[in-house]
């Protein structure tokens, strides 16, 4: 069996599991879900209607099958707040979130590669120790707090960037989303810096580097062509492993910077007790992570002929 087929096959149980988790969210609601969701002022008729809509009076398995049947038809339920289907609501909010994810990943690499290089090229020197303290500080920083401080320093005091929003047009997005993307990147880079530094040290000790050095390859060329190229692959892997963290971070950051993505939709829907939308967004986030992981794995296989399942 080919790598691609195996990888796709592995996806099936995970995908089913993701839908089961999302389905079960409603049964974690204490008491009668329909009553709790609609609040104390809801009429009995409305509660009965919602119960019927969600099939709450049926056996659990048949409820799940109903849920899956709806999903198969692309139906994520009705928003209780807007009274419209949840799917277009969520899909319309996807572009800003995807923008933020990609932008943040790019910035995280842009921050991490130079810092890791500074550290790895002089192991145990002062600059190495300084760079190694940065991730320790960074790991403990609440991302929303960093966001607030960046707004204060770079938007309110200096007016270098807009306080919030998504902006219009490509360059508008680039400018408006810089602070949010930087915030997510700051949260992410500690892990990437650590991994990159470790893998650079690894590469620097490899025999082919010694060979290249003894051939007289200039230091600069040696670093760019031999060290960096081989060290970046593990760092990208680490970025891939933490893609869930990257995507999850956008939920929080979108709310700090008022970016109209699905993270903001999720938190807003929580305050409106709009359960179907919260459920739908949770599902979309799960699918997003699964798909990105799949793409990452497949691109490895395409790039590196050594990647096969039977390692």
């Amino acid at each position, binding site marked *: 069996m080919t790598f691609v087929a195996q990888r796709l096959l592995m996806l099936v*149980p*995970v995908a089913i*599991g*993701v839908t*089961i*988790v999302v389905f079960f*969210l*409603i049964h*974690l*609601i*204490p008491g009668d879900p329909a009553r709790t969701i609609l609040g104390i002022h809801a009429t009995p008729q409305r509660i009965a209607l919602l119960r019927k809509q969600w099939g709450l009076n049926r056996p659990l398995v048949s409820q799940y099958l109903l849920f899956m049947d709806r999903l198969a038809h692309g139906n994520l339920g009705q928003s209780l707040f807007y009274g419209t289907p949840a799917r277009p609501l969520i899909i319309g909010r996807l572009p800003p979130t995807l923008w933020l994810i990609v932008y943040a990943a790019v910035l995280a690499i842009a921050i991490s590669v130079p810092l890791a290089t500074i550290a790895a090229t002089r192991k145990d020197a002062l600059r190495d120790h300084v760079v190694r303290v940065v*991730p*320790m*500080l960074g*790991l*403990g*920083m*609440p*991302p*929303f*707090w*960093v966001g*607030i*401080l960046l*707004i*204060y320093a770079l938007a*309110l005091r200096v007016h270098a960037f807009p306080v919030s929003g998504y902006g219009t047009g490509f360059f508008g997005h680039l400018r408006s989303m810089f602070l949010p993307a930087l915030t997510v990147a700051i*949260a*992410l880079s*500690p*892990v990437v810096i*650590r*991994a990159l530094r470790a893998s650079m040290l690894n590469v620097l000790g490899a025999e082919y580097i010694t060979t290249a050095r003894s051939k007289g390859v200039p230091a600069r060329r040696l670093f760019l062509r031999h060290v960096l190229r081989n060290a970046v692959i593990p760092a990208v892997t*680490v970025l891939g*492993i*933490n893609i*869930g*963290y990257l*995507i*999850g*971070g956008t*939920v*929080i950051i979108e*709310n700090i910077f008022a970016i109209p993505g699905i993270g903001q939709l*999720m*938190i807003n829907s*929580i305050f409106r007790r709009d*359960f179907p939308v*919260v*459920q739908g*967004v*949770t599902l979309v*986030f*799960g699918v997003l*992570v*699964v798909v990105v*992981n799949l793409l990452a794995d497949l691109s490895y296989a395409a790039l590196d002929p050594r990647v096969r399942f039977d390692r």
Partner: protein
Amino acid sequence: MSAISFPEPAVAIEPAEHAQPRPRRWYRQPALASGAILLGIIVAAAIAAPLLTPYNPIKQNLNDSLLFPSAHHLLGTDQLGRDTFTRLLYGLRTDLRIAFIAVLAPFCIGVTLGSVAGYFGGWVDVVLMRLVDIVVAFPFYVLIIALVFVLGPGQRSIYIAITLVGWVSYARIIRGEILVAKRQEYVLAARSAGLSAVRIMARHLLPNVITQAIIYAMSDIVQDILAIVTLGYFGLGVPPPTADLGSMINDGQNFLPTSHWQLTTFPGLAVVVVGLSLSLIGDGLADLIRPGQS
């Protein structure tokens, strides 16, 4: 799921009787010692909060609202006239307590399930690891926020949500370690001596692999504190008026433009310092068991 790089399984774990005498005691390990001292000071300050400050963290005093830092109020007061330094100490008390308790259940569940999966292998392993894949498929914050939303805000929901999401990392780490350790001779010897699987796991394997889980727990506590503070910020955490660092940041952010920046900055800094101390402890522990591999 999280921005944590998993410690690699130690390739060869020396059986205890062959182990070299440890060259360095824990207090000679600078990272570990400084982390432990730092955390000790913070925890002591949080526990001794009622002795360290004369103010009440909850009682409002509207005559003294939004005072700037002074000798009486080290960090000034918030919009309801409550002393910020006092609320900071009490907030640390709340958040640290929740984080340290919250990490226990996932630790125990993850270590147990990871040991079982790694030791027995086969379908048990396949099922448990698929379960791990499913939980990992959700972004950490998304799942925590969704769970706390459906369970209703409050401490109990935070414990449940962190347990449901947190066990997977421990299970993965311990499984990986056990896979390597169970091929060692001392395990084969124990097995051929007819010891039960439970005894081999508990008495022979776990003592050799548990350190990795403890090291990971240090960064896991940091992550849990971040989650608790984030939930507090969004009003999904500990309900007011109880002091919590997240809600303090939320309350304070409205007063950033009026130069009351200390209201937002210091609760966050407190979290950073706690995170730093735990990272130092984790790194120091890792160095202690695998010297020269930092």
